[in-house]
């Protein structure tokens, strides 16, 4: 057993960490305040090669795995989780297309995603239904030339940036009177008539990532825009979400590491009661608790990513990493705010942003409750949902 990164992985990690520290961290606070998607910065992340990591060389990718990609996402999230999520959603959506899309779809859309020139989204959630896909209403009906989509999606990341290329959209394709709803995944290019990104939401965190509702009103698409087989869309979307779980775990891990970095630095620098804050045992306790959580989350996340690359990751491995890393992200942010005292409550303080940003991580991409149901089910308990 070997817990060390190889030379190449260390070099990748160090390069991204340097970039994140020098180029992302200094602007993260103003991005949080302004709340606009940083197109230029995202493109620089693309120039660095981050978006290319897990894609096949055919599309301009580097042919690396989930593990290397998770390392990259962790380092970006250590500087700005909001940017990391824009990165990871585009990578996870692009990977879904790479895995299930047609040659023509990939040819047309993947190179821009892999190069980081454009960004893409995956749209499952609706206003009235999230994990419970049975409650979905958005529907594609047959037309003479193909399909017409009607309905709406909610809380979609990367849905309406100026460089959004497409959204993979899950819609019902079974008849209205069918006994069971079946779904299909459509590639909807930005600018398709009838496809309108709504206004950006006001959010608790992730301010600079682009989150919008997507509206579909008689949005016409040909058969060539179906991804995978008609009727199998839910399966495809779930496969995409499964890989995204490791990436979301890595996003929270990077944020938790940043909580540790800031807390240690502040404990050394801030003077109280005649010496640095870190001399106080109660502060030492909080720092140690953050540290233990970061280490444990890193082990679970790296293990899940590594298993995924071996083709051996079970649903339980992915759910465990996602559940634990995102939960401790919030715990570490909470502790870090406490270490920082009044300053930690100020929006300008990085740990305040971490506290807000990570809150969505235990909700999105399958809430902590859903992850625990998956774990219990994988352990053989009678779980129904």
């Amino acid at each position, binding site marked *: 057993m070997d817990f060390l990164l190889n030379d*190449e992985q260390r*070099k*990748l990690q160090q*390069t991204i960490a340097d*970039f994140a520290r020098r180029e992302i961290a200094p602007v993260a606070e103003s991005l949080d305040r302004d709340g606009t998607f940083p197109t230029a910065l995202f493109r620089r992340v693309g*120039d660095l*090669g*981050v978006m*290319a990591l897990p894609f096949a060389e055919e599309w301009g990718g*580097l042919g690396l795995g989930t593990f290397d990609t998770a390392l990259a996402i962790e380092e970006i999230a250590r500087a700005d989780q909001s940017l990391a999520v824009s990165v990871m959603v585009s990578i996870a959506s692009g990977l879904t297309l790479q895995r299930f899309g047609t040659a023509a779809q990939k040819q047309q859309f993947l190179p821009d995603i892999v190069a980081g020139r454009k960004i893409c989204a995956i749209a499952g959630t609706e206003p009235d239904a999230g994990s419970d896909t049975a409650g979905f209403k958005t529907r594609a009906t047959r037309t003479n030339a193909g399909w017409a989509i009607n309905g709406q999606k909610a809380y979609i990341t990367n849905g309406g940036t100026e460089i959004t290329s497409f959204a993979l959209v899950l819609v019902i394709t079974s008849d209205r009177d069918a006994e069971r709803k079946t779904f299909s995944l459509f590639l909807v290019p930005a600018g398709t008539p009838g496809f309108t990104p709504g206004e950006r939401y006001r959010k608790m965190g992730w301010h600079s990532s682009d989150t919008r509702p997507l509206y579909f009103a008689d949005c016409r698409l040909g058969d060539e825009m179906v991804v995978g087989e008609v009727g199998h869309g839910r399966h495809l979307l779930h496969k995409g979400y499964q890989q995204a779980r490791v990436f979301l775990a890595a996003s929270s891990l990077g944020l938790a590491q940043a909580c540790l970095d800031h807390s240690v630095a502040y404990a050394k620098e801030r003077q109280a009661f005649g010496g640095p804050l870190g001399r106080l045992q109660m502060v030492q306790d909080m720092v140690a608790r953050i540290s233990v959580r970061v280490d444990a989350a890193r082990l679970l996340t790296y293990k899940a990513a590594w298993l995924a690359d071996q083709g051996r990751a079970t649903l339980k491995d992915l759910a465990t990493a996602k559940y634990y890393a995102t939960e401790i992200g919030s715990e570490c942010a909470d502790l870090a705010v406490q270490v920082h005292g009044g300053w930690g409550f100020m929006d300008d303080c990085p740990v305040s942003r971490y506290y807000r940003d990570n809150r969505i991580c235990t909700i999105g991409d399958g809430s902590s409750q859903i992850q625990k149901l998956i774990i219990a089910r994988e352990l053989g308990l009678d779980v129904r949902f």
Partner: protein
Amino acid sequence: MKVLVPVKRVVDYNVKVRVRSDGTGVETAGVKMSMNPFDEIAVEEAIRLKEKGVVSEIIAVSLGVAACAETIRTALAMGADRGILVETDAELQPLAVAKLLRALAEREQPRLMILGKQAIDDDMNATGQMLAALLGWSQGTFASKITIDGDTATVTREVDGGLETVALTMPAIITTDLRLNEPRYASLPNIMKARKKPIETVRPADLGVDPAPRLKTLRVVEPPKRQAGAKVASVAELVAKLRTEAKVI
């Protein structure tokens, strides 16, 4: 035109250095090491000259322990074509480095060598000048702008009180100042490609150079801790203290 760029492995500029307890130097065990920032500027300038079509090949050279190969890899990932590692565990001082570089220059016959003006570890600011003297080449130090036209390199130098422009006849030695350029990040694809670029390893003896130190470090100590200040009640008291205690006026 071939250009040779020496790159030094130093303690990363973000690391807060600590003096070793025996006072023989600073602690480097378990400390993050990186390419000397002035050398990064040198590599970047060489790459820009190559992109302009002035330079045809960039050779990155590092001297020191085996781990210096990592520093060469960084230069290769940025865009250098091949590397040479002069491997030795001996402590290398500027004169030894200059002699080793002279030997490499005689072997490789570059028309230009771009060096960092100094390394951020010992701040010697000597190697480039010594090398130019040993080779008998022209030198332009502290460059903030370089243009090459045929056999002439025009170098804008940052000197006390302003900018000085010199025209050098090649072959030449140029050392870089901070404002020459902003080095690029090695992209991830280029990092992977760099693994396939060749690095040759030679030893000082192969180059006929004895790198033994000529200078002896007596002692390395931490800078003195800053003393607490004192409050004065009036300007008169301040002036008196400056005169009698600080003795600065």
